[in-house]
């Protein structure tokens, strides 16, 4: 049930998907991996939309070089853990939700515990080592993974819904190089809001998800394109785990 304050706060989107839809968002818990370029727009929009619980994980401190794009953080936050700064910003945006910041490095031995009972995972990290871990945990727990990645003016996004859709390993069997890349803040702004859109639609059970498709954004030429992706029958993550479940 929504309070009077919540009914007012979410009035314009309740027009879109009703109080039942808003209740679904309020009951939901999303795990956001990363409080950087992508994690900023993703978490700001999910908080504003009223997703009831957000867990956000990062191990970095706020540095001045982050501030061109990581709009969760302010100049006054320099030197603070990103998750502390993120928690403050998100609570200011929406005091009606629960925000949990965890200052930790996502690794193979803690990823399942960190994700806990979340209803979905937002991939807002900057390397494929952690992305592959998030992909595996998504399949192990049977929860969706909202993928995004950026560089310069370019970005990509995809939604992975276990057990049926192509997974991150099917799409990217070999990791792209993760060198420190140039980036302008609008690029994670665009890709992050696509990830947040996907997460909201998934929680509401409405619309059409970005599954089995890879969205490609070229901000330099303002072109959006997509390529079809398919489950790879020999994928070690999504096809083997299906076989084990059947056995």
């Amino acid at each position, binding site marked *: 049930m929504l309070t009077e304050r919540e009914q007012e706060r979410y009035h314009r989107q309740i027009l879109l998907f009703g109080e039942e839809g808003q209740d679904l968002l309020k009951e939901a818990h999303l795990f956001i991996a*990363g409080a*950087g*370029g*992508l*994690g900023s727009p993703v978490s700001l929009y999910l908080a504003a939309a009223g997703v009831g619980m957000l867990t956000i994980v990062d191990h970095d401190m706020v540095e001045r070089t982050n501030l061109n794009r990581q709009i969760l953080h302010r100049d006054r936050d320099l030197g603070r853990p990103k998750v502390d700064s993120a928690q403050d910003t998100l609570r200011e945006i929406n005091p009606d939700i629960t925000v949990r910041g965890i200052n930790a490095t996502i690794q193979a031995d803690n990823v399942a515990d960190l994700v806990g009972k979340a209803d979905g995972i937002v*991939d*807002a*990290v*900057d*390397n*494929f080592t952690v992305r592959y871990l998030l992909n595996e945990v998504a399949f192990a727990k049977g929860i969706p993974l909202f993928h*995004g*990645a*950026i*560089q*310069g003016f*370019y*970005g*990509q996004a995809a939604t992975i819904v276990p057990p049926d859709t192509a997974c991150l390993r099917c799409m*990217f*069997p*070999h*990791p*792209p*190089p*993760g060198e420190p*890349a140039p*980036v302008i803040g609008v690029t*994670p702004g665009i890709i992050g809001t696509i990830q947040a859109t996907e997460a909201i639609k998934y929680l509401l059970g409405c619309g059409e998800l970005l599954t089995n498709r*890879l969205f*490609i954004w*070229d901000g*330099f*030429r303002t072109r959006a*394109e997509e*390529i*079809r*992706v*398919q489950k790879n029958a020999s994928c070690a993550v999504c096809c083997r785990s299906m076989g084990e479940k059947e056995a």
Partner: protein
Amino acid sequence: MSVRIRFFARFRELADPEIVTEVREGTSITALIYAVTENNQAARDAIFDQEGGFRRYVILMQNGARIETTRAGETMVADGDEIAIFPPVAGG
């Protein structure tokens, strides 16, 4: 026979967004892209490794179907094919 090659994202800064070219029967995807980047060292370095194979993370599509980079050397192109090449990114 004629094939169309489409470059995406960062590759467009290195090569024409779209190239239509004539090829001989029995040309592999690897040979095709290697040939069209002949006079473009920057594009060739971005797409191929030192052994002349595709960088493994590059995404290759032939008429909308994914082709593994490791199999591009044995996958032949046909008249009217559209080959798409896209470099995924990793930043966040």
